[in-house]
């Protein structure tokens, strides 16, 4: 188990380096107008050249890459070109927003998808059909359409929620929760159905296993079979589905953040890329890859724990 974790970590670091180098080079192909973008239209060419030198953009790409890597090794990711905010702080202030949203969504998806999937697998009949239909509908409507609909209905027409989720840290838990409700609903609607469908098939696969029949023949109650044995065996498949959804949400959240004007990672990423704010983009990339690696590692560890074969060896 420990060797597995170490191996995964080593592989993760390698992935991290490759992704970082690739992104850095790719971004630098397009970094032509950064100084002009920072200074605006009224700056003189001399001022632009001075800014370029200040940012080190007059150096060759490899030199810059080297500088960045040596900084990154010491966990120094530099400062934003545009806001002078240290990358660490910039990400730190947006991370809670996005993670809160994504984690809340994934937890809700996990709970409801498991319940729905289980119900559909066990009951079949109309519940099953309903889950299937829901999955098709959920898969068919793009996330931004759902988001726009929700804003239009719940915030503008009925005024149940705030349309804009601009969160301030000082504004208390209640406001925070309130402002995140709508985005989370949008994310959950988009992810729930397909997760439920996949968890349903995981359950059906497990329910078809021989040992389930044997457990029944031993007089174990259906409820215990379902919640103790089948749930546990279906869990790895479910976890994999959820971890993929989690990673998908990290990327997809940008649209929701855009619609609800949430100052999160997704918007930071898009804004920074559009402007050419290299340090921030690199920070976001590193953060995303780290989160992906960590999530996968956690899923592996849980799966290992659930599966005695892996656990022992």
């Amino acid at each position, binding site marked *: 188990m420990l060797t597995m974790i170490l191996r995964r970590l080593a592989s993760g670091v390698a992935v991290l380096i490759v992704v970082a180098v690739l992104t850095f080079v790719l971004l630098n192909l397009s970094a032509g*107008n950064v100084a002009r973008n920072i200074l605006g239209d009224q700056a003189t060419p001399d001022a632009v050249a001075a800014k370029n030198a200040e940012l080190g953009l007059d150096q060759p790409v490899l030199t810059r890459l080297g500088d960045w890597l040596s900084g990154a090794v010491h966990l120094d990711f530099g400062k934003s070109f545009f*806001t002078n905010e240290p990358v660490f702080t910039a990400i730190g202030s947006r991370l809670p927003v996005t993670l809160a949203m994504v984690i809340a969504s994934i937890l809700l998806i996990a709970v409801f998808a498991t319940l729905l999937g289980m119900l559909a697998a066990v009951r079949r009949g109309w519940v099953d059909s309903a889950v299937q239909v829901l999955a098709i509908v959920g898969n068919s409507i793009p996330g931004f359409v759902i988001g726009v609909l929700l804003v239009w209905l719940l915030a503008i027409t009925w005024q149940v929620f705030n349309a804009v989720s*601009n969160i301030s840290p000082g504004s208390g838990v209640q406001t925070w929760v309130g402002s995140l409700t709508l985005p989370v609903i949008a994310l959950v609607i988009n992810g729930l159905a397909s997760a439920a469908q996949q968890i349903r098939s995981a359950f059906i696969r497990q329910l078809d296993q021989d040992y389930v029949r044997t457990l029944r023949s031993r007089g174990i109650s259906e409820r215990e079979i379902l919640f103790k044995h089948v749930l546990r065996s279906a869990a790895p498949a479910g976890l994999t589905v959820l971890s993929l959804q989690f990673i998908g949400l990290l990327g997809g959240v940008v649209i929701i953040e855009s619609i609800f*004007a949430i*100052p999160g990672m997704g918007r930071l990423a898009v804004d920074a890329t559009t402007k050419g704010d290299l340090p921030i983009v690199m920070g976001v990339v590193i953060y995303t890859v780290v989160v992906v690696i960590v999530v996968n590692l956690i899923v592996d560890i849980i799966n290992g724990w659930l599966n005695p074969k892996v656990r022992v060896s």
Partner: protein
Amino acid sequence: MKSRTPFAAAGLASVVALTLAACASGGGTTPSDSSSAPAGGGSDRGGTLTLGILQEPQSWDPAQAHVGHRLQPFQLAYDSLILREPDGTLAPMLATDWSYTDDAKTVLELNLRTDVTFSDGAPFNADAVVANIEHFKTDNGPQAGMATAIDSVTAVDADTVDITLSEPDPAMEYYLSQALGLMGSPDSLGTDAMDRLPVGTGPYTMVADKSVVGSQYVFVARDGYWNPDLQKWDEIDLKLLPDVTARVNALVTGEVDATLLDGTTFQQAEGAGKTLLEYATDWQGLLLFDRDGTLNPALKDVRVRQAINYAFDRKNLLAQLGGGKGEVTSQVFGPDSSAYVPELDTYYTYDPAKAKQLLADAGYANGLTIEMPLFTPGGETILTFVAQQLADVGITVKQTQVPIADYQGELGKGNFAAAWFSLFQGPTWVAYQQLLSDTTLYNPFKSTSPEIQAAAQALRTNGDDAEAAQALNRYVTENAWFAPWFRPSQLYYYDASKVAVVAQVQMAVPSIYNYSPVS
């Protein structure tokens, strides 16, 4: 106002968009209807004002301050040497009075207040001014160009400063009411700390632990501020809402008290009973850069450039792109400048037949092609109209996409013979500098003419020389150096039950002093 439409509506990229459109600074001296001067009487201080802002400062260092709507946040924490009233007149602030001490107008002497301290306790004095202006010259901010004429700054005594210019700059006093005039605490200038936390003499101070980059900034009234008349609120919150849809939603639901909208969203605010503050700061249309035919020989022919001007249905363009709010025009100089000639607003009319004739006369009866940049996101609808209107007279527009962040850079590099843009209409000298000088981004081919040189020479010593200014205006209009369409209105909406707002001339949003509580 439609100048904002393409940008502000574009959601994501509107941050950058507004950098482009942020050209609404100001500097004119023409009085506008300032029926209620805000800096006057009202000593009823109170409440919290929440503004939806389009962009946050890149740094709170005053040397990095910007113009227009991006100047507004700085006004919370920093006072400027000179105050610009809503109608554009200059009034004492940290400087009690100022004047040029020589006929050549190269030495500007300012007398300073002696009763002002910075929020970190440091006293405000002549040394502080010297430190600030020298820092401004070296810190390479977006407005560093304001200080190019400054040769040296010297403290004459504790409350007197001389600014010596290398050549006359008729806009210098105006600059001192803008970014160049903002005074920060000398101890903090240039430090990393100042990037994040402003330290000035202004009416408010930032609450660091409630302010989040990318989200919101909270300012509270500073105790013992030297001029309580300018300090009308207990607290002012700035909410960063780059997306115009988010802004209108926030306004309608009462999350912000005032914000800038655009032609696609203002109906929503009207429906919700919000009040409109309407004023114009920009002109919008095409810049026909390649007057010498470097890139596209056809544009060297004045008849081609005139044909382009006759091809546009300005009235309908204003209706569709600006929500019908604003005025059509054929000139690039605004009504608040000395160069303004009223009849030039209708110099070019919508006349496709005449356009075709002019093209035929110029030898392009079979049409011609012009490449123009399409900035994305946001420029789609505009360029569709440009292409369609020009296609109707036989000019094919080849659209080349340019990411919005790089738009200005691409224009400045001279990669395009013509381009659409929205530019602010400042005082004559400022407008000349922006549109026609050989150093500006918007004159990439450095085109000029004897007529322009002569007018510029006259304007350099007297920025408001009406005769020279109007001659200049006539020349560029008749020779079709541009193809202006209209002056769109800014659509600034606010909740009149809570706040009263007065427009600031030549500024995209009102100065922070222009908001007062409604009791």
